[in-house]
């Protein structure tokens, strides 16, 4: 029975489903049927594949009934990259290829009418999904070979045409073909500020010892951070330097990030795995789609996903649209974002560190001292502005710090010690991260901020006096249950930075101050600086 199966992947957001493209060629009414919930692009692929096969000088079974089934039948499938799998499956079922040659292999590529391949977004996550299911070979359009090669354990064939694929599968020498152009069109979403972030260093920042300690704790444990202060206080300066004190991405994290870039259509053929944590700073006028993900057509990942395992900086946070702000609840809490449209929902990872910055009022000039303040905002506007930060969002922010602009005592101090460089702080953060990696080696999370709340008092309790103090605050209503969990995690991060085995009352005290925005004891800050 002329029957063949080729494999490809369909993506739902960042999740890949293995799809069997089963082709049956037999007697019956002449025609080609394609079933299994294909989308419009795949459906059109019938014609593309037929022409591609014929123009590559192979034979399309024109006198037979061709049935193409995309299995499993109930998963919605999308993307023009099914072409290659369909084409080779048809050839396999009609005698052009041995069906056995298609085993354990993934086929990705869109076909042109003359049989050439075109690149498609998402090759990396597709390859990752295939590797997870035991496939060990993949055919991709040539410009994307490097992307697919990022996945360990996969043999990658970068090919230019259907004819080359067939030749390879038959074990014949490859025919020539013109090279495939890389993904066309300009980058959909610009990556603002990325290169700048690599040039900056903490050694350029004077004073602000309180805020420096806060970003160190935030980076060490992956905690979300709010910086509030007047214009020019240095909030942006500090936020830009946070990626610099975070250690290099692990291979796993780098792959995840590259997969997201691939899905956003940003991965260039020559790109290597990104090693430094990403920094994304969307403007407060950003649309929902560009920030959270979505867009017309395919649901693409947004800024918050492209800051996965890095830093998402939302400056002038209260100016962002309320809907968007409320939608941040999910990524703040669980590190992923689910975007639904119609019956297609996509879940993208978004486990970056959120850094919010806000001014005391819309014009940014408010000062509590009536003598100094030059603010002209009406009271009502100021209240509305601050209200954005209330409730569910603020409850999910671990660290709150107030920053003031530098004064003479900071800039002209003749005996001020040289500010530490990013490298020095990064080394401490790295050590703290390693302690966390050790602690969570049998668990699926990597940092203190990701550890689930209910497990904290059971598996990683604080020392008794600290636990008692935390309970007291909780029952007195000074902390919500979620807040108590966050303070608990912060205590662990502080203990990790200090090299302690378990957090005690001192670490809890610092954690409470970090969360409530209370000033930190100098001893806690200076301890870091040796």
């Amino acid at each position: 029975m002329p029957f063949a199966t080729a494999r490809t992947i369909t993506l739902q957001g960042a999740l890949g489903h293995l799809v069997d493209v089963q082709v049956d060629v037999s007697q019956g009414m002449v025609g080609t049927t394609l079933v299994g919930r294909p989308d419009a692009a795949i459906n059109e692929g019938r014609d593309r594949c037929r022409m591609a096969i014929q123009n590559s000088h192979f034979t399309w079974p024109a006198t037979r009934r061709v049935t193409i089934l995309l299995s499993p039948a109930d998963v919605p499938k999308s993307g023009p990259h099914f072409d290659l799998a369909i084409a080779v499956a048809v050839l396999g079922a009609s005698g052009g290829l041995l069906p056995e040659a298609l085993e354990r292999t993934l086929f990705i590529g869109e076909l042109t009418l003359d049989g050439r391949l075109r690149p498609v977004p998402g090759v990396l996550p597709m390859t990752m999904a295939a590797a997870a299911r035991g496939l060990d070979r993949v055919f991709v359009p040539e410009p994307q070979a490097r992307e697919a090669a990022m996945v360990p354990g996969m043999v990658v064939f970068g090919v230019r045409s259907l004819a080359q694929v067939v030749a390879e599968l038959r074990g014949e020498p490859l025919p020539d073909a013109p090279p495939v152009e890389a993904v066309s069109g300009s980058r959909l979403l610009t990556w603002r500020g990325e290169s700048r972030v690599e040039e900056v260093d903490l050694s350029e920042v004077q004073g602000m010892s309180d805020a420096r300690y806060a970003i160190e704790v935030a980076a060490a444990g992956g905690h979300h951070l709010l910086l509030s202060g007047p214009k020019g206080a240095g909030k942006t300066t500090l936020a830009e330097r946070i990626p610099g004190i975070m250690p290099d991405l692990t291979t796993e994290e780098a792959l995840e990030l590259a997969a997201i870039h691939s899905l956003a259509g940003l991965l260039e053929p020559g790109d290597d795995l990104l090693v430094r944590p990403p920094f994304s700073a969307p403007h407060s006028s950003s649309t929902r789609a560009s920030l959270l993900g979505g867009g017309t057509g395919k649901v693409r990942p947004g800024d918050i996903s492209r800051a996965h395992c890095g830093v998402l900086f939302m400056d002038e946070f209260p100016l962002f649209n309320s809907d968007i702000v409320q939608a941040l609840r999910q990524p703040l809490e669980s590190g992923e974002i689910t975007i639904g449209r119609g019956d297609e929902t996509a879940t993208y990872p978004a486990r970056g560190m959120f850094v919010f910055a806000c001014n005391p009022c819309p014009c940014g000039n408010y000062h509590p001292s009536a003598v100094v303040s030059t603010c002209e905002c009406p009271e009502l506007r100021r209240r509305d502005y601050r209200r954005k930060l209330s409730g569910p969002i603020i409850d999910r922010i671990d660290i709150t710090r107030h920053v003031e602009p530098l004064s003479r005592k900071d800039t002209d101090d003749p005996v001020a010690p040289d500010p530490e460089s990013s490298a020095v702080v990064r080394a401490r953060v790295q050590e703290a991260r390693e302690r966390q990696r050790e602690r969570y080696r049998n668990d699926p999370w990597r940092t203190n901020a990701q550890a689930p709340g209910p497990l904290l008092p059971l598996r990683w309790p604080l020392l008794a006096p600290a636990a008692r103090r935390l309970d007291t605050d909780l029952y007195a209503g000074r902390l919500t249950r979620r807040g108590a969990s966050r303070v608990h995690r912060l205590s662990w991060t502080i203990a990790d930075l200090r090299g302690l085995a378990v957090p005690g009352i001192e670490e809890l005290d610092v954690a409470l101050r970090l969360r409530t925005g209370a000033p930190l004891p100098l001893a806690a800050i200076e301890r870091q600086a040796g």
Partner: protein
Amino acid sequence: MSRAEERLARVALCRLSEPGDPRMAGLVDELGAVAVHRHLCAERDVGGMLTDVAARLADLEPEAELERAARAGIRYVIPGDPEWPAQLDDLARAETVQDRGGLPLGLWVRGPQRLDEIAGSVAVVGARSATSYGADVAGDIGAVLGQSGVCVVSGAAFGIDQAAHRGALAGGGRTVAVLACGADRAYPAAHKQLIDYIGEHGAVVSELAPGCAPMRVRFLSRNRIIAALAGATVVVEAAVRSGALNTANWAERLHRPVMGVPGPVTSAQSQGVHHLVRTGAALLVTSGAEVLEVVGKPGEHLQEEPRGPTRARDALSQRDTQILDAVPVARSASADSIARTAGVGLVEVGSTLLRLHERDLVARTEGGWILGAAARA
């Protein structure tokens, strides 16, 4: 009795006794330093001191001591010297605190700042376990004082002290550090760079001879020197048991103004200051400018009363306000309706509305009158 003899006697006595020992101060006041020195060296008991000092008699070499000090850039300033700060003399009349008190025998000084030029200085002291808030305020106060030419006196300790010194230096001003160890040492060791800088640009002062170690009880006697050298004392952050409260206590005894900077009521580091203010022992200040207002000459550095922003509505008479309050915000109303709501006669309402209209406080619409732009803050 030449000055040289006097000086040597005091150096010796300084080595023999602990600083701030009221018995020694009393004896020297009564008999004179040279006599007391002679008695003790001959192992004759005076004032019950012999037993305490006996162990130290053997190593006394005051001349060599002075020479060594001079080589290290340290001078010994004693009462009667031109450099002797007159404000210290108040110590002779003040009662003891925790068994420490009295005029110092002399002060060892390292640095170019003359002690007779700091009469108008301000001591800025506070908790060692300060918070970043306290350190910031202390630094800012120090900078303002320094910029205004007021010398800042403190103890170079962790927390508030070091912030105040550094603020003064950043403000381009003068600062004096009084230590509880010899003026050639740095305590705490972590502040060596700061203390050495002060030794080169200000003055490092000690009642203890060079080489002496800091011991607990010596901090208490040190605090009285800080309070006595300065014209006023500001406490920035102090917990309930802070040593800074001891300094404030001394300032009060010496009838110098005491000021305190408050903090959050939930902060343990501010509770000592709050207690001082509550009991009337300290005046509340919130900035360097306010400190200057307290210590400056009358009429100098006057601070403006803080005011909220004035709005157009504030300047209206009672009657006008009554009428304006009756003008609706959302939907306009007729003059009749406004008159009824306000409880004012129609004629008066009519003319007032016209006046208010000129100032944009009310606006005229088809339906009548509505609140104007200037009244919607």
